[in-house]
């Protein structure tokens, strides 16, 4: 059974909506660039990457709608979709970034992760433990990529994933009693991560 616990303070809800809108925009831009590349190269990796960022954008949209239209049902559906889309998007990013091509391994990753969260007693802890782990591994993958490529844009992308990991770690910490102010710093760091993504994609498009 999914239980929804929201740790953001009331006054922060409107700011959070603006943060989410910026993240949606950045996710959409990256998704569209990847989709356009997929049309040229026809490699499924680009399609996967496009779907992953579109999924991240959609996850922010559902959370934004849940915050805009308060109510137990919208909160439940909105945050439920937010969890599902975020996990699917981050897992897809992990699969693409690590070039995992074995269909059974991919299926196993999806099948293990999603039900574990939806059938856990605390959506909050299981969701943020999972996203913290995935973003930590993504940051590690992109560190290796930056060291291999040695390009400024690759370093920016690594930095963005590192910030995303730090944000999810703080989201996790905000679930503990007395630490809910971490939710605000986590949201700011997450926004910074998406701004670094935006900077990197603008640099790529202007290269």
């Amino acid at each position, binding site marked *: 059974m999914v239980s929804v616990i929201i740790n953001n303070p009331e006054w922060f809800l409107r700011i959070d909506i603006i943060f989410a809108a910026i993240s949606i925009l950045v996710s959409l831009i990256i998704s569209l*660039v990847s989709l356009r590349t997929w049309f040229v*190269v026809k490699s499924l990796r680009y399609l996967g*990457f496009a779907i992953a960022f579109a999924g991240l954008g959609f996850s922010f949209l559902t959370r934004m709608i849940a915050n805009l239209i308060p109510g137990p049902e919208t909160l439940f559906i909105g945050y439920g979709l937010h969890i599902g889309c975020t996990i699917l998007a981050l897992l897809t990013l992990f699969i693409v970034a690590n070039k995992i091509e074995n269909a059974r391994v991919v299926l196993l990753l999806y099948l293990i992760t999603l039900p574990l969260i939806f059938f856990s007693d605390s959506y909050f802890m299981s969701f943020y433990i999972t996203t913290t782990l995935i973003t930590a591994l993504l940051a590690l*993958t992109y560190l290796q990529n930056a060291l291999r*490529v040695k390009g400024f*844009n*690759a370093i920016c992308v690594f930095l963005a994933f590192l910030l995303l990991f730090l944000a999810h770690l703080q989201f996790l910490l905000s679930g503990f009693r007395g630490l809910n102010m971490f939710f605000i710093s986590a949201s700011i760091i997450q926004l910074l991560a998406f701004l670094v993504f935006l900077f990197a994609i603008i640099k790529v498009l202007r290269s």
Partner: protein
Amino acid sequence: MRRNKQDIIFDMLTAVQSKGGFILPTHLLYKSNLSHAKMKDYLDELMTKNVLIYMTDKGKQKIKMTEKGFKFLQSLRKLREFTEAFGI
């Protein structure tokens, strides 16, 4: 590391660009590190798409990059930058 089709075309076009947009077929063969048969296949495709054309300069046959070719190379450069930066 094994090059894919996109890498090979990028290397070929970069070789032509580095020579100012004109290159002798033998130089292209050497710079693109391909067999004669493979290079001919890629050249045929790039000629069909009007990215490269044959021209004669001082009695020698050369390969020239078209305006479309320069734009295509620029797009390929962006694509590579995106692929490398985002580790795809």
